[in-house]
């Protein structure tokens, strides 16, 4: 399939407008997974329509907010609402009624089961007839799995990078350079702080991993006293980490502490630090 041609065919526009046929929806949802350019076009069109919708904004009456909050509060207890959610929630999908998706998934499931059975039969026959060949097939499928895993990992990494970028490009965010301290002068880290919301994000990607059995711990210096700002846990795979919330701090510092952190910082284990102003 020529993906550029597909993008200019108008099918994506039909999809975001909610008028694509069931087949088109299935096709696009698969293409979104495969082609970043399709995903990007869908996102762009959705943003356009969101703006279009926004241009029709209207203010609901004042009292409605309390009414809705009251309705939300009582909803979970009433049986009527339980039935309502059971029947209604499946309708909610980004663009298409889920029934089509379900049936598509059903077909996909049936197809994969059929494939599985077929490959099982095929394998059995091969084991009897050509043991060597079946070993080779197993080898190839292992390689394929490895490749697939790699692709998934790359996709997740790309998603994480995008999230990090979104956070870092917020205009209200202050960028604080954490410089190396003492014997750690060659190291540095970055901290992003939004004093208005108190959000603190830490980026220690350029630092070596903490020593075995140890962890980096962030401290905020508030009114001259160190306050625990959370543990840095690189195992999550995030590019930058959301730490504890601070509305006020003169300084941020990172120390090496035992796993799980310490109640007070081990001062001679300070690696990087930076002032907020």
């Amino acid at each position, binding site marked *: 399939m020529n993906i550029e041609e597909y993008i*200019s*065919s*108008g*099918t994506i*526009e*039909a999809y*975001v*407008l*909610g*008028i694509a*046929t069931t087949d088109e929806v299935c096709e696009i949802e698969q293409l979104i997974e495969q082609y970043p350019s399709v995903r990007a076009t*869908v*996102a*762009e*069109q*959705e*943003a*356009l*329509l*969101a*703006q*279009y*919708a*926004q*241009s*029709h*904004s*209207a*203010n*609901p*009456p004042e009292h*409605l*907010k309390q*009414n*809705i*909050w009251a*309705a*939300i509060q009582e*909803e*979970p207890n009433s049986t009527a*609402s339980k039935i309502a*959610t059971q029947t*209604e*929630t499946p*309708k*909610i*999908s*980004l*663009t298409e009624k889920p029934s089509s998706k379900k049936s598509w998934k059903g077909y996909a499931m049936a197809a994969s089961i059929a494939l599985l059975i077929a490959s099982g039969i095929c394998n059995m026959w091969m084991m009897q007839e050509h043991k060597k060949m079946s070993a080779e097939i197993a080898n190839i499928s292992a390689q394929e799995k490895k490749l697939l895993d790699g692709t998934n990992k790359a996709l997740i990494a790309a*998603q994480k990078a995008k*999230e990090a970028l*979104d*956070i870092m490009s*917020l205009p*209200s965010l202050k960028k604080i350079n954490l410089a190396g301290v003492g014997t750690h002068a060659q190291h540095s880290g970055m901290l992003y702080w939004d004093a*208005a*919301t108190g*959000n603190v994000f830490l980026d220690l990607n350029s630092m070596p991993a903490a020593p075995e059995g140890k962890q980096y711990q962030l401290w905020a210096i508030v009114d001259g006293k160190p306050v625990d700002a959370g543990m840095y846990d690189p195992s999550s795979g995030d590019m930058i980490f959301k730490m504890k919330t601070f509305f006020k701090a003169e300084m941020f510092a990172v120390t090496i502490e035992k796993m799980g952190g310490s109640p007070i910082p081990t001062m001679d284990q300070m690696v990087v630090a930076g002032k907020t102003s």
Partner: protein
Amino acid sequence: MTNNIALFETELIALLKIKDEKAFNYLYDNYSGALCGIILKVLNQEELANDVLQEVFVKIWRSIEQYDSSKGRLYTWMLNIARNSAIDTLRSKGFQQGQKTSDIGNNAYLNDGRRSSTNNTDVLGLKKSVLNLKPEFRVLINLAYFQGFTQEEISQTLNIPLGTVKTRMRNALLELKSIFV
């Protein structure tokens, strides 16, 4: 909304999932205008639109677990819930019967401008730019987006070949892009 990024979408989702009232306030203050606008545009009836808006917020609140951020933005998801709910109401029997008797009332309301706009300058700017959209494109987008027409219905209503509906949609959105960006 642009200068009020007090909560990131991801954080908002997290708050919604733990059913935090702060999340509701944020959600309502920032999105009720857009959601109400889309519903009103579909239904053209203030009172009914308010009922649907309430239903939509309850749905969002109760189905947040089903929101999948890999499939699109939270805002788009919410707009689609509002749009689908409004279109479902539009297509329901009760609505069509009530519509016949209340036409005059609706028009009076639509023209008085009492709540037709928010004081948000962003929205005012958007409203102005939308006026630059060619009427034929506006009709096309509105039939699909606000009225829930299918490709066949659009082809019949506007008397254009079914095969060109998608091409026209693309042209319409390209023009929308040129006036927004």
